[in-house]
């Protein structure tokens, strides 16, 4: 493909700005990865290459427990949030435009606008009022709630971009509304659903404020655990953990991009 006439690379200084931008964005991450292979116990003193901190991280039981908690909560919250978001998006994008629907949409998106600390304190008080004591239950409920708008937005966008003709064509060809949804609507909005689920998963994995607020024995998530490690001083083990997390994130992002690119090609 030839470069278009308004190729951004032809603007003066474009390369320099780009280089500085990427350096600013990724230098800290590169440093983390670099020092995760440092043999020395002190994070910032390089003495030699070693993978011992990875071994230490993988053998750290508290760390593995935290990882398990995070993954369990994230998976359940992602499934819950995506299901709720999918239903909300179907109703809101296929219903006639009435005020009640506009209001509903605002309610679904409200958690995006509210400061997380407010929501976190609110759920903490709510759960103690309700007498819910199980840490995992509290985490899962709270995560499902704040992940829903993140799952909702891409699904909603995808549904809005999809002509109603497809659903009508399906029903015209004798599909019940449920069959039409299962065989036409869902496959066509799958990239949006996948993107929504990914966002929800990442938001849940990444969450600190709410998880920290609800922290109790047996329900310490990975970010909360890492924060507790930092309080005791950083070690290269922390760098190793971070590097592993970066790898997992990269893998997920790559899969998501590849899937949406495939869907784009298909729909052209």
């Amino acid at each position, binding site marked *: 493909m030839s470069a278009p006439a308004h190729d951004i690379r032809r603007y003066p200084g474009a390369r320099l700005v780009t280089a500085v931008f990427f350096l600013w964005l990724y230098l800290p991450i590169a440093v983390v990865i670099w020092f995760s292979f440092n043999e020395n116990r002190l994070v910032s003193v390089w003495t030699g290459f070693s993978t011992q901190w990875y071994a230490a991280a993988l053998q750290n039981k508290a760390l593995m427990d935290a990882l398990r908690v995070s993954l369990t909560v994230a998976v359940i919250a992602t499934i819950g949030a995506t299901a709720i978001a999918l239903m909300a998006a179907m109703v809101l994008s296929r219903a006639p435009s009435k005020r009640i629907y506009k209001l509903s949409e605002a309610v679904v998106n409200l958690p995006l606008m509210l400061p997380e600390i407010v929501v976190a304190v609110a759920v903490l008080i709510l759960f103690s009022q309700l007498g819910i004591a199980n840490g995992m239950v509290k985490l899962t409920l709270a995560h499902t709630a704040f992940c829903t708008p993140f799952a909702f937005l891409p699904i909603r966008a995808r549904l809005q971009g999809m002509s109603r003709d497809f659903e009508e064509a399906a029903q015209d060809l004798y599909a019940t509304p449920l069959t*039409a949804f299962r065989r036409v609507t869902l496959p066509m909005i799958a990239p949006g659903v996948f993107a929504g689920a990914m966002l929800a998963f990442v938001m849940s994995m990444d969450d600190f404020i709410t998880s920290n607020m609800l922290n109790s024995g047996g329900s310490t998530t990975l970010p909360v655990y890492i924060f507790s490690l930092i309080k005791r001083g950083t070690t290269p083990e922390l760098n190793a953990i971070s590097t592993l997390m970066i790898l997992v994130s990269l893998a997920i992002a790559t899969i998501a991009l590849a899937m949406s690119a495939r869907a784009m090609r298909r729909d052209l």
Partner: protein
Amino acid sequence: MARGKAVEVYNVSKRFGSYQALDQVSFTIHENEFFTLLGPSGCGKTTLLRMIAGFESPSEGAILLNGAEIETLPPHRRRVNTVFQSYALFPHMTLAQNIAFGLENLGWDRKRREARVAEMLELVHMTQFAARRPAQLSGGQRQRIALARALAPEPQVLLLDEPLSALDLKLRQAMRDELRSLQKKTGITFIFVTHDQEEALDMSDRICVLGEGRIQQLGTPAEIYEDPENRFVADFIGETNFLAAEVLSVEGDMARIRTPFGLEITARQKGLTGPGPATLSLRPEKIGMQSQADGHVLQGTVRGRNYMGGFTHYTVDVAGQPLRVSRRNALSHAESFEPGQTVSLGFREDSARVLAQ
């Protein structure tokens, strides 16, 4: 030939808020008929089609499919299929899967399905593309698959919503013939919605002209063109000259009128009851020039000329009144008239029509 009734529409009205999309519309479509709903955008033709398909319901009135009331049936229980303007082929399915979709929902077994899909692909000359996806097709090919998909379940009625509007001119012409022959071959009732009068005249057994939510005229293409019911139809179908005329007397379907050129003629009339102002409609191709001037002859001056290849359109000034005249360029040495030239024009009484203002 006595034919069964495929679709009956009784006093159907449709309001969207305060907007009256359809107002007391009634007509019957016969089995095995190519029926066209023709009208400008916003005339309610697509609304009518969507009501038959089940995507809208009438505010008043009833629609019968093969004699049975369908109001309570959801779209997936109506034995009608639609060819959508956008085609709406499912992008995640192959063409064969697209065509099989309706059959699966009807519970056809695999063997019967596969045979029908092959038959339909053959019918639209797309057999070698069975495994492709819609994105890999051209506009005309998509159109064919949309047709095959809608015809596969053997619907009682096939609805076509402006299916040719997305195609380029050449292809549109070819698809007209193909649609027409498909209809004859399958014997299925076609209800075709279009705003293109040429398409409607070319393909239809009968045309229903809709305007402002009401039926303006229902008839064969020739009836609609030759004997328009009113000004709306005469104006919408084809091209015509409208001249203000004065009715002297009305006798049955004939009226004696005075034209702006001072001539008094007797011509077929529609919608008039007695003396008063009226409109004279004179089609451009029914006016002869010079050697072809026949009947009532008038003198005029050529004002403009549009060469269209097969035809030349002239604007001729007759007593201050511009008249459009269409002349077929039949012979290579056909006479041509220059602007400014004085010519004689002629028209016969039996090709003039008198309509209500």
